[in-house]
């Protein structure tokens, strides 16, 4: 089997066009997951009755499901239930009008929420009791304590795990091609379908993912260093 550099470069060019799609899916999912993950982690940290055990139960179940199944499940469930729901809400759209990127974002947001809730729970739990006591004793409200004390302490510790998750989300977004989203991976496959040059296409895809992850890791390290300078000093 011969390897054509030219074909590979062509695939690279075609696929690169969809880098924004992939990044969009990954970052939006990370953002949504960040909000819900933090909320769930706080509910569990403050041990809020009933909600806390409900979240614990849901997360235990979802944690064990492969992301492929979550994507396919999200697609299947929404294809079944979207139309009746839209109708009952009086919307004028049907499932056919829904952009498949939404489905991908929904599925990856579930993945991100689960992982981030665990990441935040761990880092929040590692904050020493004295920090909570001090915040309460100077008269901060719970919300001020969370926003001004807990999150600034937890975030730098969580950052490497968050950046790891982002990399995983980018890779997982390639599975979104299963629900007809055209992302980097799907675009490369489509270009390969025209000339049956799959090896070149896959190499091109690998290069793009590798470059993206390299960039993310570098910027995360940079952010981590600048954020952690204080904290590291305080733990030396």
């Amino acid at each position, binding site marked *: 089997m011969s390897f054509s550099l030219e074909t590979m470069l062509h695939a690279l060019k075609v696929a690169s066009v969809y880098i924004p799609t992939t990044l969009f899916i990954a970052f939006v999912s990370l953002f949504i997951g960040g909000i819900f993950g933090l909320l769930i982690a706080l509910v569990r940290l403050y041990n809020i009755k009933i909600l806390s055990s409900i979240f614990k139960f849901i997360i235990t179940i979802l944690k064990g499901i492969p992301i492929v199944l979550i994507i396919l499940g999200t697609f299947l469930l929404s294809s079944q239930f979207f139309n009746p729901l839209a109708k009952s809400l009086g919307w004028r759209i049907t499932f056919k009008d829904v952009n498949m990127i939404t489905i991908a974002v929904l599925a990856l947001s579930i993945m991100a929420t689960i992982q981030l809730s665990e990441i935040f729970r761990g880092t929040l739990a590692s904050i*020493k009791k*004295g*920090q909570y*006591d*001090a*915040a*309460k*004793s*100077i*008269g*901060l*409200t719970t919300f*001020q304590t969370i926003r*001004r*004390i807990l999150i*600034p*302490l937890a975030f730098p510790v969580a950052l490497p795990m968050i950046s790891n998750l982002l990399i995983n989300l980018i890779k997982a977004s390639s599975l979104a091609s299963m629900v007809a989203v055209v992302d980097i991976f799907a675009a490369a496959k489509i270009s390969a379908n025209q000339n049956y040059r799959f090896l070149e296409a896959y190499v091109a895809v690998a290069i793009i993912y590798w470059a993206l992850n390299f960039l993310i890791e570098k910027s995360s390290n940079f952010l981590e260093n600048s954020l952690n300078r*204080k*904290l590291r*000093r*305080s*733990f*030396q």
Partner: protein
Amino acid sequence: MIALENVHKSFQKQQVLKGINLKVEKGEVVCILGPSGSGKTTFLRCINFLEKADQGSIKIGASQVDFSTASKNDILKIRRQTAMVFQNYALFNNKTAKENIMVGLILAQKMLPQKAEELALELLQKVGLADRADFYPSQLSGGQKQRVGIARALALNPEVILFDEPTSSLDPELVGQTLALIKQIADEGGTMILVTHEMGFAYEIADTVVFMEGGVIVEQGTPDEVFNHPAEERTQQFLSRFTDHQKVGQQAV
């Protein structure tokens, strides 16, 4: 004036405070003594609402709050009129000495950041740490950390400062300077409740000495009454373990 009445607190099945009554007048210094596990820390934490007492009430100035029915606002109100100095300092690790003092001023007391900074620097000056304003806790010695803790408490201008064994985590050579600072605050009219094992210091600084054991106040009175003429046998037994310190106290007279 601060008045605590009938304070009860249990952890799981264990009853730690069994009805404590204590009145502290403005400017009064109360020292609490007692063996380990007698509930001294728990009592201070209940005053600051770091633990929620099961029963009893607290009165500070015009606010009277029942522990069992305290609302979020009541809790915040009491917390903002009391300040705690912790045995292990409990400074915010990711904030400088100055910022540790400023957080409460800006967030709880709604002071303008610029004014908060001025006050923080002034207080650091007072506790002898003007040159450490931008240092993180990890860059400070135990004694310096504790003085930042004291400055943080002072900044809030509380009705009462609660000290929980402020010097027991310190190296012996650092104890003196911290005690001197506490003495200075007392001399300036600060109201305080101080848990300590430094008998000599308690003798010297206290207006009232309280001996606690098993979750109750066994005896209370002036330093002279409690140290030199304890009425209760349990107080005598406890103090006999500190005879050396007691002598130090008597020499100070």
